[in-house]
């Protein structure tokens, strides 16, 4: 009747790729450069070569979200970016739920509407690009889950006893088809935490959206999003969460950067560090702390690193 919504990781990624096209994220690479580093290092540790191309542009999801331009523009941008990947005969791996969601959806529109594909190829054709629809779109979290056991084997800094909670992000778990877990009650991040020795925490509001698109994209009104975020962070605090991970730099910005503002508005003292899942994996796999770029965080990680027995000196060096 319809495609399955939840599929096994082996169905999603049948063979572990040798090389992947790593799709850089504007929010991720600018706000939290450590995320990109962590993704690259983790791929390396898992024996997967990351191919990048400076010619790749932003996925243009922002332009759609904020209705900054007609959707046709984003279709052409997607055709251009995927044409670059196609030429290299690779699949795309994003590390941002936004990039993942937008590229998947826009590619779907292109490939199911010949008129849109002609239009987009007409535009990018003038620049010498042509998209034929070969590359598949993945998020690195899917590869991490597919390689959970390998990751577990390669842990050199066990996250023993660290109370970690997941923030999944809507643009992955709200998808209709072909995702790795039940979007209504996903547990695959928690499984990864456990595989690295951490203690997963299922806090009450773990599935509440980060509010980033509403607060920053549509309305630019703090009062729209802060009560919502307050509810989420309060619930995490009450559950004793020591660290939250995201798989979307947008979510990371909302949950991390907003904490001081929320503390001011509500007279609270939230200081729950928020990092990318790839950074946590990088940490467990023994990446140098400096490369993980925790200095970019508004809410510092110090408590977490101390708990893991990583001294301040190491952290700075």
């Amino acid at each position, binding site marked *: *009747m319809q495609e399955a*919504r*939840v599929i096994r990781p082996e169905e999603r990624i049948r063979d572990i790729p040798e090389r992947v096209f790593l799709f850089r994220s504007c929010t991720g690479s600018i706000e939290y450069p450590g995320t990109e580093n962590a993704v690259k290092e983790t791929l390396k540790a898992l024996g997967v070569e990351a191919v990048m191309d400076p010619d790749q542009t932003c996925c243009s999801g922002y332009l759609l979200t904020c209705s900054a331009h007609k959707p046709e523009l984003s279709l052409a941008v997607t055709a251009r970016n995927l044409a670059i990947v196609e030429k290299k005969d690779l699949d795309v791996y994003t590390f941002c739920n936004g990039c993942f969601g937008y590229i998947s959806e826009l590619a779907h529109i292109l490939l199911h509407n010949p008129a849109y594909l002609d239009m987009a190829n007409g535009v990018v054709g003038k620049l010498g690009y042509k998209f034929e629809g070969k590359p598949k779109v993945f998020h690195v979290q899917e590869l991490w889950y597919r390689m959970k056991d390998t990751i577990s084997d390669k842990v050199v800094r066990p996250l023993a006893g660290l109370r970690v909670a997941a923030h999944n992000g809507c643009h992955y778990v709200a998808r*209709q088809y072909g995702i790795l877990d*039940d*979007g*209504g*009650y*996903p547990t695959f991040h928690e499984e990864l935490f456990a595989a690295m020795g951490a203690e997963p925490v299922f806090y*009450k*509001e773990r*599935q509440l959206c980060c509010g980033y698109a509403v607060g920053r994209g549509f309305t630019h009104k703090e009062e729209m999003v802060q009560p919502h975020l307050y509810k989420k962070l309060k619930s995490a605090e009450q559950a004793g969460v020591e660290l939250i991970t995201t798989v979307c730099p947008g979510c990371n910005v909302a949950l991390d950067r907003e904490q001081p503002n929320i503390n001011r508005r509500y007279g609270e003292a939230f200081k729950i560090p928020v990092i990318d899942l790839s950074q946590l994996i990088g940490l467990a796999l023994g990446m140098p702390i400096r490369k993980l770029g925790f200095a970019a965080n508004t809410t510092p990680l110090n408590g977490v690193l101390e708990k893991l027995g990583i001294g301040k000196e190491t952290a700075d060096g």
Partner: protein
Amino acid sequence: MGNRTKTAVVIGAGPAGIEAAIRISQAGFNSIIVEKEPELGGTLKQLCSSFPRWEDPRELLDRKILELQSCPAASIRKNTVVAEATSNGSGYVVKLSEVRTGKTDEVIADAVVLATGFELMDISIYGEYGYGIYPEVVHALEFEATLKEWKRGKGKPPKGVAIIKCVGSRDRSKGNPYCSKICCMYSAKQAGLVKEFFPDAKVYVFYMDYRAAGRQYEEFVREVIEQRHVRYVRGRPAKVLCEDGRLLVRAEDTLIGLPVEVVVDIVVLAPAVVPRPSTRRLAEMFGASTDEYGFIEPEPFNPVQASARTFFAGGCGFAVETPLALQQGAAAAANVIALFNLE
């Protein structure tokens, strides 16, 4: 065929099958009613009370079973399934298999009535509602058992109950596109029963819209809302969460346009009605076809005929309430009797 008394095999002993077997036998033909379970009654035997008259289904079932047992031409085969069937030109040779012993025997069927009933969709795919995660989230048939306990004065009284309708129905993304038809009415019945047993309990029914199309149906739902004081909230819940050992249902009340949260002890999900997988297999055996979901497809211009000598009644055709199951059982029997008389 000579003067041999003709025989119809009725598969499934819920209200539809029982009714068909009774009527065929009362008209002077043989009927063999085959039931895979050790007890007759199908889904109906699991139910507590009924709509629109709050009658006890057990009473109806006992009467029907007594009537069936008093038909000399009706034989009842419990714990039995149909293993295979082959056409013998004018009908079928049906191999019956005893569930526990595996012992088989063959009977001749000059006509067949499929009355295999329905089942409920697996709703654990709706992770947001927590079925299979929180033990206090139950589906409608499980809740019928709880209601029966409460009726007997047993079980722990609830402070709050929330019923969520259309779980898997009218949902083109994860569930089925169709309306399962009976859930609006049985959910109203269940909500009304909780208020009857525990007038102080808070009972909420979350609905997209309620469809009470039937004699006395609208009046029944209004009674539940206005006299029994069940709160009907228009909105599909987004999440069921655990809070301090109770369940929190988060939804939008689309009539007031605001998010609402209620804390309850039990969440009842009304899952989509789906065909049993065995229905498709049996339909193939008897030359009948099924639709895209697996419900039996009727022949043109005869809503209870599935193929030349195969008729059907009850939930294997689509979701039915008890009176309609009885009507269809009688209609299928009328077709069998007419066919036998013409030959």
